[in-house]
């Protein structure tokens, strides 16, 4: 049978050594009547070649051959084959959480480097070893703020990713948190007046995203000031990490919840991605998730260990800062390798290419009659367009042109059915941008 390293004779020998007459005897503690009498009805067994054929057939039923203008939390960026070569080394791929530090220094040092990179990117002082994704990182950041402030009201920007808001609500429901949403202004940024009005001394956190879900960049300093002045913390979510190559880091935020997918992770239909929480040193003992720390061995040599474990479920059980155990370690390693490959200049250049292409795309698309930019705050690689008709209809037309059109904002914002969130990254060729503009023009010329 596949993957099993025993010959029939070896099985018999081992049974004999145990003193069991048959394999079934080993399962005698399971009441007879509950033991399956027939084989499970599962497809297979398939040989390696058939497994590959099966998934190739499924892959062929997906979106191959289309050009996409989707972002909205998952981004297409160039990735190096080097990253994959590294994370496929069995030593990284097939090891467990580094509980036994002496034979896990590779993973531990890499996590320490990841934590450092995340701090450098976000302008924060400490970062953890990863969370499931940006959505749960944001939620856990809010729970952390709750613990830090002892307050329970949470003000969340409506311009935070709709699915992130959903996840927060799922978790909040039974934690006694009160989640309120703050709208956006005409520039697409958080409605500061509404924020001021809602801010009371019972607010644990103000949660914003930047660039926000409409693509526009929030001014974090006034938001931080406002939050702080009422004793609340500012939690900033970042879904597009590449922006940090060119956009000021959220250093004034108290907690940053970031999605690291843009750093070398494939979209993979939405997972596995990798969330991160970064914050201030003084808050570290309320952080969720694993942390690697530097220390020395009995002979004084530098080494790394998992540390501050008293925050975690395996030590603290019901008093833990979070229930997270398995995280997204290999994704974090991929991000570490990817960012190291890009380096200081490379990340900056990648960010600059995104910015330039998005600017170019906006220019091309604005030339299409009836199309206008919806919000005028600065943006990075996503922007919101207002179209003269429903985005869904337009997208249906684009699809026939082998273009996957922009994200339909109307699905999450009923007031924005004619609004489309366009994403353009360094991977989008100029010619495709131009083709998109031309197709959009044609789409809008179609009789409705």
């Amino acid at each position: 049978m596949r993957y099993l390293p025993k010959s029939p004779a070896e099985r018999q020998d081992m049974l004999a050594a145990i003193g069991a007459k048959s394999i079934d005897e080993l399962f005698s503690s399971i009441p007879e009547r509950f033991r399956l009498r027939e084989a499970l009805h599962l497809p297979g067994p398939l040989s390696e070649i058939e497994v590959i054929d099966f998934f190739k057939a499924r892959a062929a039923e997906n979106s191959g051959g289309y050009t996409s203008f989707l972002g909205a939390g998952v981004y297409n960026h160039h990735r190096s084959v080097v990253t994959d070569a590294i994370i496929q080394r069995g030593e990284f791929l097939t090891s467990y959480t580094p509980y036994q530090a002496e034979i896990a220094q590779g993973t531990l040092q890499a996590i320490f480097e990841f934590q450092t990179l995340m701090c450098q990117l976000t302008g924060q002082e400490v970062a953890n070893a990863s969370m499931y994704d940006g959505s749960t990182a944001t939620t856990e950041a809010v729970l952390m703020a709750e613990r830090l402030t002892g307050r329970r009201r949470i003000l969340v920007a409506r311009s935070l990713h709709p699915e992130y808001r959903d996840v927060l609500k799922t978790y909040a429901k039974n934690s006694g948190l009160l989640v309120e949403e703050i709208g956006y202004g005409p520039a697409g940024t958080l409605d500061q007046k509404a924020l001021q009005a809602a801010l009371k001394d019972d607010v644990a956190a103000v949660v914003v995203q930047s660039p926000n879900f409409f693509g526009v960049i929030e001014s974090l300093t006034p938001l931080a000031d406002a939050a702080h002045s009422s004793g609340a913390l500012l939690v900033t979510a970042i879904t597009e990490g590449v922006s940090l190559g060119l956009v000021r880091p959220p250093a004034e935020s108290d907690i940053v919840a970031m999605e690291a997918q843009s750093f070398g992770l494939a979209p993979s239909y939405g997972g596995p991605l990798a969330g991160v929480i970064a914050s201030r040193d003084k808050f570290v003992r309320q952080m969720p998730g694993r942390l690697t720390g530097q220390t020395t061995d009995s002979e004084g040599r530098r080494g790394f260990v998992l540390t501050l474990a008293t925050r975690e479920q395996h030590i603290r059980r019901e008093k833990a800062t979070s229930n997270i155990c398995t995280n997204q370690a290999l994704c974090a390693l991929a991000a570490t390798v990817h960012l190291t490959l890009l380096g200081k200049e490379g990340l900056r250049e990648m960010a600059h290419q995104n910015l330039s292409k998005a600017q170019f795309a906006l220019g091309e698309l604005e030339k299409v009659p009836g199309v206008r930019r919806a919000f005028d705050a600065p943006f990075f690689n996503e922007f919101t367009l207002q179209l003269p008709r429903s985005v869904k209809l337009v997208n249906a037309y684009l699809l026939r042109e082998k273009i996957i059109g922009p994200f339909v904002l109307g699905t999450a914002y009923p007031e924005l059915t004619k609004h489309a969130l366009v994403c353009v990254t360094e991977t989008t060729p100029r010619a495709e941008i131009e083709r998109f503009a031309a197709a959009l023009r044609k789409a809008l010329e179609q009789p409705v």
Partner: protein
Amino acid sequence: MTDKIKKATHHPNQNEGLIFEKSSPGKRAFELPPLDVPPADPSKALGAAHRHEGIEGFPEVSEIEVIRHFTRLSTWNYAIDLGMYPLGSCTMKYNPRVNEFVARLDGIATEHPYQPQELSQGCFKILRLLEQCLLEITGMDSVTLQPAAGAQGELTGLLLIRAYHEKNGNPRKKVLIPDSAHGTNPATAVIAGYEVENIKSESHGQINVVKLRDLVTPDVAALMITNPSTLGIFEQRIPEIAEILHADGALLYMDGANMNALTGITRPGDLGVDVMHLNLHKTFSTPHGGGGPGAGPVAMKKILEPFRPVPILVEKENGRLALEQVRPDSIGRVKAFNGNFGVLVRALAYILAYGPGVREATEDAVLNANYIRKHLEGAFDLPYSLPSMHEVVFSDALQKKNGVNTMDIAKRLIDYGFHPYTTAFPLIVPGALMIEPTESESREECDLFIDAMRSIANEAATTPELVKTAPHTTRVRRLDEVGAARKPILRWKPQGSRTRAVD
């Protein structure tokens, strides 16, 4: 190295500082294709948000330095690909290479979660088939593939239970959890808004059904049970336990981390379990990757189906599959997008490779654990003597007499060429040695492990210092964990205080 250490030997490996310490301005590795549109002026485009300076301290290194850095680091790890990794409760089995291959295919790894559903039928079929397989394996009625890991599966499961009780008028207050449970169980219960009531295991390691009857009150929402328990023992009275709970309107949650003992042999659904999670990164062989990612699907009985988290995969009238994002009674969304899709792909690849033969994997896993138990009984104390399933838990009681504890034995195992077993739990066994070989170990590797353990037992009696100061062969010796926690250094800093690198 002494003669008795057969499996490991010395080899020079490469030292390596932190990547930041190798950085030098102007070095580059990955470069981008040239920009094909006019370059934007960032200060103009971004205004005040523009970050003028580069990111301080960010690495600047070349491609060969990246390759060497991470290759060298990798050689400091132990891994399944190198040898037995008998971490109890972690099910460190072989991670087939073909699964990595299919997860990276164009058309799989490249898909965007918001692409049109008509262009996602391949993804949907993968999800649907995996759902069907997991239902068949667990004997349950419905499943969600959303949760990112076991702990999130637990939370999802408890939220389903909560929603169910709420729908019935009262969410209830408490969740019962045996003292042998994994730490995520109580931690999760709290997030779901429940109080935890620990229940003490019986002296033979099982739940005391008589006492349970008393504990189950209308306040109790559920019992979270791990089966086989973390002692590796099958809870024989589980159908009765289910009845007791159900009689009082409470539900039975099963932590399915140990499904490697049951797959193909028995089905939790048939045993009276109402809801459970699976750790695909344990039982279904998706690689642990140094700590993750995983996936923690939750399977449930019909009564809980209305509450499943969105999105939900449904079959349309035209036979096409679709994801639904809104369901009136749903607990909501537990994670953005569509679960850890890439992990789900690997798990399906694993199941397809075995087909109904998954049963044989279970058999071999239980065979290995019992073989090891048989050969180590006597050398180590066996606190619970009921039959072992996929893992066996010893204690260090015999070695403690000489001042040698489970962690010392674990560290000494490293010198013998093995990854240690789990030492941290179950808490009900003081000084536990929790050994789970999985089906992936050959007889040869099991025999070497047994030899090593017996030899260490002997050393503990004759030369305890040797064991207490282990490991002796690793590039670093035991690390100062107390110091690390007292004055945490959690990131590299340009002028940070540095201790000397390994030499």
